[in-house]
Every structure is written in structure tokens, then in C-alpha cells.
């Protein structure tokens, strides 16, 4: 349910930038990591509500769900979330499972399939990839 906070953070950041450079925004493209299992419906709904009275009032939000490439810093093996037990973690915690709130916690919950290490590097950040101005 923190998709509202996420939507707020996106609107706020882009609006701040838009006012600094003096533009209006038509389209915002953000990327989110698949492990977060975000509810894209709520995200869109929150965005459309929160964008009112901002420079993004007439903008569309496009969300790209990216499946991160995990890299084990011990043995170098690279893999994706298909080889990780995230479903199990999800069942144990339910909807607000830790990686939904904070995807950067992933190394605590997955092991390298080849050597079992938790020393896993991956880009798990939520990013504003593109902003199209009016």
C-alpha cells in the first residue's frame, strides 16, 4: 500500500525539476524492479490523483517493470529472479513483504544459486527514466 508514497515521491521530484527548468510535463517514464511486485493499478491511481495542481497535471505515467540482473560478488555468477525463491518469501510475509517496501533488502533474502552467498549486487532502485515536456 505504499504505492501512494511512491507516486507522491515521483510527482514531487519531477514537479520540482519542472519548476526549476520552467517546463510542463507530458509524460513520465519510471522503471521499477520486478522483485518489488508493485500494484501498478494503485500506482497509476495515486499518480493521477497527486499530479493535480502540479506541472504534471496533464501528464501520463508509464511504468517499466525491470527484471534485475543479479551478480554474485563471490563467484561472479549472474542470474535473474527466476532462479530465486521470492515466491516463498512473499507467501511467508504476505502482501507487504519486505522487498515490496524496500527492494534493496534483496540480498538478505536470496542466495547465489551457484555458491550460496548473499553477496549479491543488482540495480534495485526505482528510477525516473524519461521525462517528456510539453
Amino acid at each position: 500500500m505504499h504505492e501512494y508514497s511512491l507516486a507522491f515521491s515521483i510527482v514531487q521530484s519531477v514537479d520540482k525539476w519542472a519548476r526549476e527548468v520552467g517546463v510542463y510535463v507530458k509524460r513520465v517514464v519510471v522503471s521499477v524492479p520486478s522483485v518489488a511486485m508493485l500494484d501498478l493499478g494503485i500506482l497509476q491511481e495515486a499518480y493521477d490523483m497527486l499530479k493535480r495542481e502540479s506541472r504534471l497535471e496533464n501528464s501520463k505515467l508509464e511504468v517499466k517493470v525491470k527484471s534485475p540482473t543479479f551478480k554474485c560478488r563471490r563467484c561472479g555468477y549472474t542470474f535473474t529472479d527466476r532462479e530465486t525463491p521470492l515466491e516463498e518469501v512473499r507467501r511467508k510475509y504476505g502482501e507487504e513483504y519486505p522487498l515490496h517496501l524496500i527492494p534493496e533488502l534483496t540480498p538478505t533474502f536470496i542466495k547465489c544459486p551457484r555458491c550460496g552467498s548473499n553477496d549479491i549486487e543488482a540495480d534495485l532502485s526505482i528510477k525516473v527514466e524519461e521525462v517528456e515536456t510539453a
Partner: protein
Amino acid sequence: MRPILDLAREKLKGKRVFAVLSGKGGVGKSIVAAFWAMALPKSALIDLDLFNMSTVKLFGVEKLHEVDKEGIKPFEVDGVKFFSLGGIVGDRWVVLPGANEGNVAEALLAFADLTGVENVVVDMPPGTGEVLLTLVRVTPFTPIVVTTPSRAAVSVVRQLMDYLQEQSIIPEVLVINMAYLMCKGEKIHPFGWPKELEDLKSR
């Protein structure tokens, strides 16, 4: 554009932020942070020691944080609101690369629901690494510096004070914790009382 960082900054704008710091481990940061939050009105305690998660244990909480539109809801015990990673992962170990540690700390600050809160007390991990840099990145703060009289702690805390001074961040309080013990009416000092402690007090 860094949405989560901007959100964390936005959340703490206009609030009085204290950070309980030491550099040294096990000197009583978490205990002092808890007391400090209890003593302040409209306060909230945010536990950024991601590997110890002492706060949930100190307050005996064993459930997970609720989450709603406003973000992560605080636990509340004896009128003190607090947030801890322990309320997200539960009672299990947390192992993270350094870079992730800062991002997790930033996310806690960003998603904490601080509605109605005026004083924020941040319980910091030992060391002067990723989480200290994250806090300095997110918000101005008033340090509450904690030490024990032990020579090892005093020397680390002196170095922390040099760093804070260079960043013109001025500590308001120095807590000398675990200073003495009453033994049948007599004071004993388990960690000694080195003269370097006087220099710390004078700063």
C-alpha cells in the same frame, strides 16, 4: 532526480532531527535514543542500525509495521512512536552490501509516516560509514554524542567530533554512559576514567 531521497528530505523538513551518534559500538546509543524520544513531546524514534534493530527488542515489539497510504505506520509504546527494520523483516538476520545499507536507511526515512511528529530521534549504527553519510545527505541534524569512559570509545568519539566540527555540525549533548557502578555504597569505574575524557567534555 532521486524520488526516494527527495521524499526523505521532504518528510523531515520542518522537523527537529536529533541523531544519537558515537562511532563506537555498544556504548548505549539505542538506550539513550529511546530515553531521548520518551522525554520529547510529539516525538518519533527511527532506528537506522539495520543489523541490530535494537529498538523493537527494547520496546518488546514482535509484530510487523502496518502500511497504508501515508506510508509505514509507527509502533507506539508508552506514547513513544518508533520505526525499525525489525518491524519489516521480523526477528531474523539482515545481511547487506554497503551500498544497499544506505538505500534501505533512506527508504525507512522516506516511507515513515511522521504525521503529527515534531521531534525525530535517529538511532544510529556504530561507525562513520554509509548510514552516517546517508543521514548527512538527507537532513540537517543535532548530534547527541554517546561514549563510555573507556579509552577506546573516547578516542573514536574524539575523531567523530573532529569530523562533525569540519562539517560544522555542532553536538549539543555528550552522554558519558556506563560511567560507574555502585558496589555496596562505593563507586567503581569498570571502564576507568581517562584524562582524555575531560578534553571531550570541554568540547
